[in-house]
């Protein structure tokens, strides 16, 4: 199971980096989101397999509970990534409306 998680994280990381470097801004925003998900998956794999029983439910005292901290952290990270993604898409849409393009190569007003 750990190997599966490692391979999945690696593939998603590669996909995310590839998409992030595309010329189209919408595609690079998607690449950013895939990257964030890859790192959330990495985080999840860190703490997922220590326990067999969910934490904070009626379970036998001897049962090994899974780590609740990691799940709380990932939930926070997912919310943050949603927020960043939303702001990024908003900025891209307002820039596309102003300059009539989403191509990063033609957006060179900051040069010089």
């Amino acid at each position: 199971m750990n190997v599966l998680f490692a391979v999945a994280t690696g593939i998603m990381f590669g996909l995310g980096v590839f998409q992030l470097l595309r010329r189209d801004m919408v595609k690079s925003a998607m690449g950013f989101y895939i990257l964030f998900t890859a790192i959330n998956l990495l985080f999840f794999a860190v703490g997922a397999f220590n326990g067999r029983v969910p934490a904070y439910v009626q379970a036998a005292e001897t049962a090994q509970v899974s780590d609740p901290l990691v799940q709380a952290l990932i939930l926070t990270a997912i919310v943050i990534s949603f927020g960043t993604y939303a702001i990024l898409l908003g900025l891209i849409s307002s820039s596309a409306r102003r300059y009539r393009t989403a191509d990063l190569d033609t957006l060179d007003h900051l040069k010089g």
Partner: protein
Amino acid sequence: MTPDNPLVLLPIFAPLSGAALCILMARYLRVQHAIGLTASSLAWVASLAILIQNWQGGLQVYRLGGYQPPYGIILAPDMLSALFEVMATTVVLCGTIYILGCHDKCVSLPAFMPLFLCMNAGLNGAFYTGDIFTLFVFQELMIMSSVVLVAISDNRLGVEAAIKYLLISAMGSLFLLMGIAAIYATFGTLTLADIARLLEGGERPLLAQAAAVVLMCAFLLKSAVFPFHFWQPDFHTAAPTPVHAVLSSVVVKVGVYGLIRLTMLLFIAEAPLVRSLLLILGVIGIFFGGLAALRTYDAKRMLAYSTFGQIGFILLGIGWGTPLALVGAIVYAFNHAFIKSSLLMITGAIASRMPNKSAKLIDIGGAGNQMRNVSILYFIGGLALTGIPR
């Protein structure tokens, strides 16, 4: 166990609740300004009080929700974070006062004050927090509000600069999150003091070095050091003046603070590696920033490049690593924050009185003839920046 000190909450929650109130009062600009000024002054007074308490009684602690440190969130300002916090709240208070008299168009938007207060809260939280994941959360709050503040700026290039910064700083946040995952995988805790205790004794796990490198990348990106610097002049120049003053003087110091924590508290064994790299990057930053500032034709952009050089001086102090050098770095960071923010606010004030509202050197030529007092102030600031009366 030290008792909880509820005063620690004030610098974070006064701006946050102020922001919520400002959104409710979106129609009344004067009320918004009054709320913003009150929240910033409260945060300033509280940060000063915490610095004094730190001086007298050592570490101040607040455990959020009453949970104990390895699981709960802890706010633990020690002397270093209390000092940086006083610096941050002072600059933000001056920025808020500048906003009251500022005539830029974006400042009168109803969203401006809440975003500014949110940035303030994120900044204060990033300095006060005692665990590294909360540092990430507060840093994200700061980044997002500053991105939107720059995107609504009067400068036409604001949106483009904001996209550039958001993509790059999101990469920085990803690096930080990856470092947090590596730390949690090896040590099973995220509290800074706990990690330091675990790193002190016992063998070095392999992931610890990777975590040190990834965290260093994240903090270097945050403070715009040489290979990661290219977003900084564009983003800072496009920002509205009060936001530019805060960004250029204290927001880059979050990265500096992180680097000090990294070399002095967390990764003591990896510190020689990190320090030697910081020395090289600092020297490159000093030369590159100074030379690049020479060939700009915009007063705000020139000051942004000069920030880049001065962060190099601070990194040199951290990289040297002796107690005296560190004290020098912290004092320099303190001075740089006040001087740079005051110079930027003077530049913004001059530019807003000029006919075409720009800080290009060709547009503000001859401004000193009309504003004699302002030019004297600017001269004093320039002398302070070079460190003339030593």
